[in-house]
């Protein structure tokens, strides 16, 4: 009994210490980021690695999510004889929820894991320690550019996901099933608000970009410098980032669309 309470206390203490350390690291990274303005090349390189390489998987997933929304939405709306609202349904579900959330989950799997593994291996190979020896702060040279690249790439990817998804819904709804094309677009334009729906969706994806990228970088930076430790850190990235995205989504939805 005493042991159980003791281990619970230890777990809570470790968790709190990790949280505090992560916060300290986040603030230090932000304060060092101004130096990056003089070397935007570092960020551009990382956007290429994180963003461009994720483009194909994001676009293809968006297309298929749009297809499925078109089919399922038509099935439900047809029961009420209002299949003209299909465009509205597809556009609202994508811009408000699915675009940011699914992109963030895919982003955690596609880019987050590679960031964790890269930094974990740099640590295992003592490259980070070597940088410190040369008076180069790895937080500024390695972590910072990757973080900002993730924050920039994430909303772009989410917007592409939503746009491609709407096109997918259009292909299935209008081209295959035969919903009236004019009603599809006009109902969408009548119901989707630029500020309330589109802009809030972009805002969501920016927050997810912050969360997912930082979790991936933190896990890599704090991993045990062994092959096993790196593999464990990569798994933790996916688990923690996915859960964080989902509860953050609930929180943001409650705040934005109450």
């Amino acid at each position: 009994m005493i042991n159980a309470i003791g281990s619970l206390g230890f777990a809570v203490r470790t968790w709190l210490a990790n949280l505090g350390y992560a916060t300290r690291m986040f603030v230090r990274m932000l304060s060092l980021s101004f130096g990056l303005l003089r070397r935007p090349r570092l960020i551009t390189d990382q956007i290429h690695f994180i963003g461009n390489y994720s483009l194909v998987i994001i676009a293809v997933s968006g297309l298929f999510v749009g297809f499925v929304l078109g089919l399922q939405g038509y099935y439900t709306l047809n029961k009420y004889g209002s299949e003209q609202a299909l465009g509205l349904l597809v556009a609202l579900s994508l811009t408000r929820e699915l675009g940011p959330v699914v992109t963030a989950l895919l982003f955690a799997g596609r880019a987050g894991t590679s960031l964790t593994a890269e930094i974990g291996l740099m640590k295992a190979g003592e490259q980070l320690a070597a940088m410190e020896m040369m008076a180069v702060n790895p937080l500024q040279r390695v972590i910072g550019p990757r973080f900002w690249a993730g924050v920039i790439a994430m909303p772009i990817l989410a917007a592409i996901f939503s746009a491609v998804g709407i096109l997918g819904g259009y292909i299935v709804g209008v081209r295959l099933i035969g919903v009236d094309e004019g009603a599809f677009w006009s109902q969408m334009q009548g119901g989707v608000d630029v500020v309330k729906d589109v802009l809030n969706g972009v805002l969501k994806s920016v927050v997810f970009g912050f969360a997912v990228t930082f979790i991936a970088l933190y896990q890599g930076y704090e991993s045990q410098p062994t092959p096993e430790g790196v593999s464990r850190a990569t798994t933790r990235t996916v688990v923690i980032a996915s859960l964080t995205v989902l509860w953050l989504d609930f929180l943001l939805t409650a705040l934005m669309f109450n």
Partner: protein
Amino acid sequence: MQRKSLDVWVGMFVLLGAAAILFLAMKAGNLSSFSLTPTYQVISKFDNIGGLKPQAPVKSAGVVVGRVADIRFDDKTFQASVVLNLDSAYQFPKDSSLKILTSGLLGEQYIGISPGGDVKNLANGDKVTSTQSAIVLEDLISQFLYSKAADGGANGSGGNNGSNGSSNSSNSGSGSSNSGSGSK
């Protein structure tokens, strides 16, 4: 050389994102319906606005001539006070009347302007007094039922069969309206 081609790809990626956001705003959203043309405000009072919402169109002869800017409740007159932004390109006589209409059977509600015959035109800040409220389905049904009942009462002394038939039909009508409101 390597560096340059990489920059091009990143530039294309960012451009693609901007295009996607533009697509969402213009094609999926209502940004294209925001007009920067000058407008003038007209205030009107309605007894019942039904399901009218801000940003709903104001139409005359089916053409959009403005939008609903704001809807508030006035606790002096117990009426809804609706502010309309009308396009300055279109002028209406001062005694024009406003009606809340529905596009289609279950579509969105909008305000229709029927022009009057006054020589002066509506100006910024004017009040429109001649308004007609939205039609509420429940009122319509109860009106119909009362008129049916009145008919039945008038015919009561005469042909019994006929009045029975009409009261039966009105009963079935009320039954279906109840079930309709229950399922909402």
